[in-house]
């Protein structure tokens, strides 16, 4: 892991533990004879803060020299490298957006219709060349899930206006 990643992840953890500790103060501490609901979370938040701070300090002290050395390159090269190294991330973002949409529309158009669309589109996103195979796969998955989970296990899945 690069020093920048180490520092940024530690920083996020420090901020998370601080936010958690602040939020924990909303609950009663009571006393040692009858510890309240805030005691255990406070201890956990404290330990997490200590660990992430220690990691942050170590990362900062260990990474001073390499960071300065890397900044010397031009901004354009840095941007090009970034986009080159993170080509796949765009697909992850698209799939995340698809999943958000999937969960949102599931309650309106029903589990099976939304799943049918999700399987086709996600398969296409994963570089399936044609439409036929993803459609057949999607149909097969939906039928399998319907007979297994609804027909056999009697699971109640979200139903919408279509199915």
């Amino acid at each position, binding site marked *: 892991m690069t020093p920048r*990643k180490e520092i940024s992840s530690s920083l996020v953890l420090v901020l998370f533990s601080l936010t958690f500790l602040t939020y924990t103060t909303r609950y*009663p501490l009571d006393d040692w004879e009858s510890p309240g*609901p805030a005691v255990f*979370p406070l201890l956990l938040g404290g330990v997490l803060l200590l660990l992430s701070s220690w990691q942050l300090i170590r990362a900062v002290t260990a990474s001073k020299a390499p960071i300065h050395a890397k900044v010397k390159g031009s901004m354009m090269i840095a941007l090009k490298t970034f986009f080159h190294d993170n080509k796949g991330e765009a697909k992850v973002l698209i799939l995340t957006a698809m999943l958000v949409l999937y969960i949102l529309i599931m309650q309106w158009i029903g589990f099976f219709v939304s799943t049918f669309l999700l399987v086709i589109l*996600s398969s296409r996103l994963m570089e399936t060349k044609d439409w036929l195979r993803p459609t057949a796969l999607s149909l097969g998955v939906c039928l399998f899930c319907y007979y297994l989970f609804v027909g056999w296990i009697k699971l109640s899945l979200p139903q919408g206006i279509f199915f």
Partner: protein
Amino acid sequence: MSEQGILSYLLIAFQPANFISCFIGAMIGTLIGVLPGLGPAAAMALVIPLTLKLGPTAGLIMLAGIYYGSMYGGSTTSILVNVPGEPASVVTTLDGYKMAKKGRAGAALAIAAIGSFIAGTVSVIALQFFAPLLARTALAFGPAEYFALTVLGIVLLSSMTGKSKARSLIMMMTGLILSTVGMDPIGGLERFSFGIETAQGGISFIAITTGLFGIAEVFEVLAAREKPLEILPVKFRELYPNRKELRRSAAPIARGSLLGFLIGLLPGPAATMASFASYGMERSISRHPEEFGNGAIEGVAGPEAANNAASGGAMIPLLSLGLPFTPATAVLLGGMLLHGITPGPFLLRDRPDVFWGVIGSFYLGNAMLLILNLPLVGIFAKLVRVPSRYLMPVILVLCTIGTYGDNSALFDVWVMLAAGVIGYVMRKYGYQPAPLVVGLVLGPVMERSFRQTLIISGGRVESLWESPLCMVMWGIAFLAVLLPIVIPRIKAGLKRDC
């Protein structure tokens, strides 16, 4: 009770109705274990209404079949697609998946099945003969001992992902923090649920694990710039472990069986803890610890044996004390009560047919699972060669169904997606999800025992470590922290002197 009497009760499992129930339970369990997300607890809860028609013995045999069948099946998806079917198989992903990537998926699956069979049988024999004695030992654990045990577990398990102890501990703390969401286990006060009704019962364990492992895996495959490793076609015979692999697996299976059974007697997520503890032990005593995490067969054999032995061991407190220490045994307890059976010290006296019938079904079920699993190894291994563009959408759907099916709540699906995104980012930044899962499971036990100890002792903090059992566990925990720091320094000092 005479041995003949016990034998006749054990044979109850072989009666046609019980035999068929055992087979169906083991099949459903394997299927549930294979499917990522849908865990044994959720599956058992769904099947309980159906078992009511079968009567107590056949019904409970079917539920027990689902329980240990899922332990067998859980390893399959861990090895083939890096998605643990259930929490106890999380550790199998570390080496099992790496073995699959090297084209040894069949060998890993076969070793997991053989190890599970041996460990399952060992645990049932031990369960049958040592149940009363071991149950008394388990009874000696009070809240202070439970707390010391969870602390010891966290310390020992912090080195499980190998690269950084600090990161493992950070992930465990995050898991423990997530476990505090929902009702406070002592006073019942609602915490960190932000008014969301579904979150009041706590964050869904299934949603978190499915997201961290299943969805994050799909993202990772999608983002990978290089093509996923294609496994070369191999002959059916070559899917089985070779002599070297069998030889290397024998001792880890034996150690895993013993360790798993002993951990199974203790409260908490026994199967999960046992698999991680076995992995840590195998790694620490191995002559080639660098192979762990890169496809070491010992990393599959030991944990798989341990989690199956633990699931047998966990039946002792359930059957003899009426104490469910895992979510799955809690559901099993619910099933028993619905069948009019009250587990506890009187179960053996009042309903020996049920007690020994269920234990007898363990023998039968283990044999069935081995017979079922070994021939199916080839079919499971073929799954690896299914292109990810077809497999990943299917995983997305199964994860969604598994998560939604747990509570019938869309909120859990949102949690799963969030856990998936976070899990993906975590992997990118070198944080492993497995310690977080351990923290999430241990959290409720740890908090309850911590607060109960203080309440019982009237606020005396020293009561957390003053009993002999606690002292031993705290002592081991301190040694586990100190020794890795002290030993290298001593070694370095000795080298300098030389």
